[in-house]
């Protein structure tokens, strides 16, 4: 049985995602579109022996793109060879903005795609006293119209039934103004596009991704020859459609009968107030921060104990030796080090998703715009920056709603400075080792330092944005045109889906890397080419003839680690990191951290357990007792500890983020600049701190 591919299209804030979740339930998955990392949500369901594959396209106001999200909608719908090109489209509209939905619907029909029209949120419309003449609307749009309320599930069966409907011919297509007829004819020949409206779209778009270079140039030349601006054409089409729709939709949608002051108005008076709006937002941020730390406590303790138990059991079950160390300290402890952050990530995403769902997030954008603009950012950068406190990967992806290329690029480049969850295990372990447990002005010193690290992340992000602003050029004017929807009760299942997706993505992604790195480290640490590795026992015996048996074992193992491939790598970079206060063993941790910073602690555990026989100590105890062979002082002292904290705060140590930045910016240049800038800055900050304190 073949699946029918359908696409959900609609303006932002019409409840499209809720409808998608209703249709597909748990049968959905999140992936990426090839080439760009706009999140792609697909799902499937069956109705009356028909299988449907649904793709949830990003929200768009019209077919002419003004952001990356909208560009994607155009590409998928206009290009029949696109793998996501649907067989039919469901256009979802909001009853308060039927014009807008109908405009998008007409554009899609004019492109030659069959579509049905869904008016969602009808419960809200009924409460406001709006009536919709469905029969007349069906006649005007010449398709099936379905009224739904995705929140309550109303109309979902009718929608599923309507999917089988095939509208006949396109309704009166958009009349291309006669003055452009010749230009459109020229485009049809140049691009081999027989379809009038699709050719018109080629002409009225700055760039059409799915055409090849010669065709793009040909179209640009046609525009030039006819003295056309793509922008003017878009405006002309939109204006003409508005006028036409105003006339045609007259009498179909009733005016609201209730004029009582709505809840949104009253709430906004406070939430977007020039003073109280900010006070409330910052109190909310404090609440989120507080919740992440206190609510997650019991869960984190439980996970910690469970993994400690697991490691002990595995340790007893396997014979002692390096393999035991790999499994217990490397893999189990490493995975545990990730799982333990699930509660914090989940709590953060619960808040972020509640803010998005309720409509409050657009108020945050409104409030923050003025304060982010001096840094070359937009109010819309507030969302990626806040999500960056959980994980830079979804945060960088969420920057795609920023229309201006410069603001979007700067947001992507600075978001990885925000303190993500992966930095926490390092911060917590290092702070625990080097910051004394005492109170300053009644506050825990260790907690203050941790808070300071968060602050440092924000300052680094804003500071570097300010610097980047001077170098990044833009071809576009920056603007902020943002819809602020009415406040709505968040839909629980939408929140759950978001939290589940993001958390799973983080755990699976990081888990894979930890597993791979632990094994690679273990292999590199267990083999060596140097004769001090292969003949370690002999050499130790000759150099220390009077050594006791226990010391002999230790000495052999630590010498083997030092001359293993891993040790050789560590010693190779040692000259570069000695000024920062690290030894070659920490160098190995640093190298491994460039894959993902959260592996530092588990790497150090693997390194220390390979180099010694004592399996009784925990990672933390082992780190506390480790002596830096160069200085003869504890490896983790105040100077080297702060130096490490600063290094991890600023360095770009996450392969997944690098990969995402490369995809999202579509530029190796900016990806490498970011990598070099962050890591260079980290090196200098760590160097300065160590040399000052030492």
């Amino acid at each position: 049985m073949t699946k029918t591919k359908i696409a959900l299209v609609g303006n932002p804030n019409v409840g499209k995602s809720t409808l998608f979740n209703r249709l597909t339930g748990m049968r959905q998955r999140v992936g990426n579109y090839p080439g760009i990392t706009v999140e792609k949500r697909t799902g499937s369901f069956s109705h009356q022996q028909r299988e449907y594959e649904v793709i949830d396209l990003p929200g768009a106001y019209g077919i002419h793109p003004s952001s990356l999200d909208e560009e994607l909608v155009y590409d998928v719908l206009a290009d029949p060879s696109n793998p996501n090109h649907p067989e039919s489209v469901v256009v979802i509209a909001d009853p308060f903005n039927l014009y807008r939905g109908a405009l998008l619907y007409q554009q899609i029909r004019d492109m030659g795609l069959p579509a049905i029209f869904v008016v969602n949120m009808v419960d809200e419309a009924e409460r406001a006293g709006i009536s919709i003449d469905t029969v007349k609307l069906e006649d005007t749009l010449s398709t099936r119209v379905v009224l739904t309320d995705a929140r309550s599930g109303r109309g979902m069966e009718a929608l599923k039934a309507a999917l089988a409907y095939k509208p006949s011919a396109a309704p009166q297509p958009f009349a291309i103004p006669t003055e452009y007829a010749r230009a459109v004819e020229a485009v049809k020949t140049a691009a081999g596009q027989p379809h009038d409206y699709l050719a018109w779209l080629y002409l009225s778009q700055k760039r059409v991704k799915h055409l090849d270079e010669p065709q793009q140039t040909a179209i640009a030349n046609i525009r030039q020859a006819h003295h056309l601006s793509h922008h003017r054409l878009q405006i002309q089409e939109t204006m003409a459609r508005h006028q036409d729709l105003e006339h045609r939709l007259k009498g179909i949608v009733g005016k609201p009968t209730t004029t009582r002051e709505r809840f949104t108005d009253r709430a906004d008076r406070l939430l977007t107030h020039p003073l109280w709006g900010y006070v409330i937002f910052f109190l909310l941020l404090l609440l989120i921060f507080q919740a992440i730390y206190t609510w997650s406590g019991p869960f984190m303790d439980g996970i910690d104990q469970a993994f400690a138990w697991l490691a002990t059991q595995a340790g007893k079950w396997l014979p002692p030796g390096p393999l035991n160390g790999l499994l217990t300290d490397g893999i189990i402890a490493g995975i545990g080090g990730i799982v333990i952050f699930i509660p914090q990530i989940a709590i953060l995403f619960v808040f972020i998703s509640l803010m998005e769902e309720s409509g409050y997030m657009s108020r945050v954008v409104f409030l923050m715009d003025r304060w982010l603009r001096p840094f070359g950012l937009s109010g819309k950068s507030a969302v990626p920056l806040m999500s960056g406190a959980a994980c830079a990967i979804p945060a960088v992806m969420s920057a795609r709603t920023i229309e201006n290329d410069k603001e979007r690029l700067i947001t992507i480049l600075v978001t990885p400075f925000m303190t993500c969850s992966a930095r926490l295990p390092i911060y917590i372990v290092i702070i625990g080792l080097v910051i004394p447990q005492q109170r300053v002005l009644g506050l825990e010193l260790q907690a203050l330092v941790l808070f300071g690290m968060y602050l440092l992340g924000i300052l680094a992000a804003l500071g570097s944005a300010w610097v980047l602003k001077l170098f990044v050029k833009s071809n576009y004017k920056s603007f902020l045109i943002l819809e602020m929807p009415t406040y709505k009760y968040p839909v629980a299942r939408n929140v759950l889906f978001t939290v589940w997706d993001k958390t799973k993505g983080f755990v699976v992604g990081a888990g894979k890397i930890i597993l791979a790195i632990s094994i690679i480290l273990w292999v590199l640490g267990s083999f060596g080419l140097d004769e001090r590795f292969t003949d370690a026992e002999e050499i130790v015996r000759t150099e220390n003839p009077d050594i006791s048996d226990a010391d002999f074992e230790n000495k052999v193992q630590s010498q083997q680690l030092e001359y293993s491939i891993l040790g050789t790598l560590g010693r190779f970079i040692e000259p570069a990191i000695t000024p920062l206060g690290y030894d070659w063993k920490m160098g190995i941790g640093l190298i491994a951290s460039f894959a993902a910073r959260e592996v530092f602690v588990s790497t150090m555990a693997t390194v220390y357990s390979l180099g010694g026989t004592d399996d009784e100590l925990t990672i933390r105890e082992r780190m506390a007792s480790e002596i830096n062979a160069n200085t003869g002082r504890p490896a983790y002292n105040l100077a080297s500890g702060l130096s490490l904290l600063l290094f991890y705060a600023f360095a770009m140590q996450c392969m997944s983020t690098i990969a995402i930045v490369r995809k999202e910016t579509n530029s190796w240049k900016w990806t490498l600049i970011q990598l070099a800038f962050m890591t260079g800055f980290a090196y200098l900050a760590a160097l300065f701190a160590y040399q000052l304190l030492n």
Partner: protein
Amino acid sequence: MAERPSISQLEKGEKAVIVGYRADDIPIKLYEMGLLPGVALTLKQRLPFNGPICVQVIGNPNAVALRKTEADLILVDSIA
């Protein structure tokens, strides 16, 4: 034609009708959002230090936020 005031010159709570635009190349999004000539709106909120403003098209529950630079482009006639 005497220069008309722009949206950004409205008082908070003041009602006005869009009569035109000051420049040609205004973002297509303004049109798509329905900020078209003939549309009546009120100024809902204004943030300090030349921050963005928030307007509400009459009859539409969703509001629209604009930076001052965009608001300056939209010319209006005040209505009582």
